[in-house]
């Protein structure tokens, strides 16, 4: 258990680090701003640097932060929902539906501005399919949900491969970037931030219930949780979080799997600490990853999904190893 003072310190540091990360993201890129230039740019949005910071880099950094927080929160929920530490936001096929719809749109030459709406529609279709098939007649079954979701995801994957095979060569690169996860054209719509904020508050309210749920469905029921309702609610919330993230930035991998684990190692498994920590750190992590993706090979830009994995893998292995040593 974490003392309240430690928790507060942790959250404050993560907020400050997030702000610093966003500031750094807006200062770096193919044109690097010294910190005086950066202050000037901040105060005069009309100037050349001001345009760069306010119109290009800031929206992208905010989008990165939001997507990171969405995916990390969704990952925490999915892991409790399926009681499986390997679960990630994409495991139940939400992103598959989104990817198929988006890629179909790209193939048919739909305007780029319409793609997020298509992604959302695809996710929704997938959520409804999995929900109605897995629900069935009987009581909740985590195994049935997992199997339904994984098989649905495989179905989407096959359709996606088909599109990639048949699609015009010219759009292949864009499709690939989208599938890996890319923030180049990402903007952060107000409804995405609202979704994140609302679901975050709901999750905090049921954080203690999630703690109990993590101990198993029967245990949770014996401790007074109406688990049938709770589990479906968690499924829906996690799916909506994933759908929102994917519609902004495509399938950014690894964040939703690794950030919840990292935070479990660092702050423990009490969801009242874990959820806010994961959301804040997830945002920070993706902002930093995206900044690297823009700068490492500048002026070339990498899809951020590549960087999340390249950064996340060693970081995670290091912490896992240290946790083992401590025990």
């Amino acid at each position: 258990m974490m003392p309240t003072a430690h928790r507060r310190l942790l959250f404050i540091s993560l907020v400050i680090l997030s702000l610093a990360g966003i500031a750094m993201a807006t200062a770096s890129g193919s044109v690097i701003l010294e910190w005086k230039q950066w202050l000037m740019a901040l105060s005069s949005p009309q100037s050349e640097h001001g345009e760069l910071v306010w119109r290009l880099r800031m929206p992208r950094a905010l989008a990165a932060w939001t997507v990171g927080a969405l995916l990390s929160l969704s990952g925490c929920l999915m892991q409790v929902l399926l009681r499986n530490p390997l679960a990630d936001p994409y495991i139940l096929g939400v992103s598959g539906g989104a990817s198929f719809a988006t890629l179909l749109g790209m193939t048919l030459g739909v305007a780029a501005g319409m793609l997020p709406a298509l992604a959302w529609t695809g996710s929704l279709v997938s959520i409804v399919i999995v929900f109605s098939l897995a629900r069935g007649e009987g009581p909740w079954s985590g195994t049935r949900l997992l199997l339904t979701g994984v098989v649905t995801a495989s179905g989407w994957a096959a359709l996606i491969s088909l599109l990639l095979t048949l699609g015009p060569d010219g759009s292949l690169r864009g499709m690939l970037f989208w599938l890996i996860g890319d923030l180049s054209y990402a903007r952060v719509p107000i409804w995405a931030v609202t979704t994140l904020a609302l679901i975050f508050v709901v999750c905090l309210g049921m954080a203690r219930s999630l703690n109990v749920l993590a101990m198993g469905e029967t245990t949770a029921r014996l401790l007074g949780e109406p688990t049938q309702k709770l589990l479906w609610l968690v499924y829906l919330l996690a799916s909506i979080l994933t759908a929102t993230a994917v519609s902004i930035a495509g399938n950014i991998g690894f964040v939703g799997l690794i950030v919840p684990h990292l935070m479990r190692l660092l702050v423990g498994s009490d969801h009242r600490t874990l959820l806010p920590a994961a959301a804040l750190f997830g945002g920070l992590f993706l902002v930093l990853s995206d900044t690297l993706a823009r700068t490492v090979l500048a002026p070339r830009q990498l899809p951020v999904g590549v960087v999340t994995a390249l950064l996340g893998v060693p970081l995670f292995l290091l912490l896992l190893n240290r946790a083992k040593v401590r025990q």
Partner: protein
Amino acid sequence: MTDLSCDGLDVRIAGINVVDNLELKLEPGQFWGLLGPNGIGKTTLLKCLSGISEPAAGRVLLEKRDISELPRRLLARHVGMLQQHTVYVFDSRVLQTALTGRHPHLGYWDREGPEDLQKAVDALQAVGLEGFSERSVTGLSGGEARRLAFATLLVQEPDILLLDEPTNHLDLRHQVQIMKMIREQTRECGRTALAALHDINLAARFCSHILMLFGDGEWCAGPGEDMLDESSLERLYRCPVEQVQSRNGPRYYPAG
């Protein structure tokens, strides 16, 4: 304190009625031992009594109210169950796990207060897990995990304690200790306990009442001294049983 009763309860496993028309009233202060061979429906019966499973027929009543109509949170304040197995998938601290026993007593946005913390600390001490507070639950031995699960039940403070083989994985000393604690809960706190047991002698020594399930739907229930004898145990376990007189009363062993 409240009492729990069964009203014409049928328990069915794979289409076979293993308990037929059970009429039973568990009253405050009683410590019931639930005896019967493997796979006879002891666990299923406990699950029905705790509201986890639906009985095939009949009702379970808390006071006079059907438990299937009670909100789960309210039910969990009155009825608690120690499950036969506890598996921890996600790592957690021992103290944090014991504190989950307070869950049904707290509202959505409540945090555990100093009183709740004290209850958890006391319960851990009672089961001999003091000094384990910050240990990880995944690193506990079978017996330690068992005692932690029992401590969590104590922290939950239900009026009715349902226990599925509470002495599983425990060494001799801890078996006696946990049975003593259950008896203390019934005698001194006015709670009610029903424990599925395989050790007839622990039942003979600690339980005030015995419920036997024979598997063909038949059952019998009553005060311990009336229920336990060679012939009923032989019929129950389909195995010759020998009664030996100890200083503390009769004890039973497989004959031969």
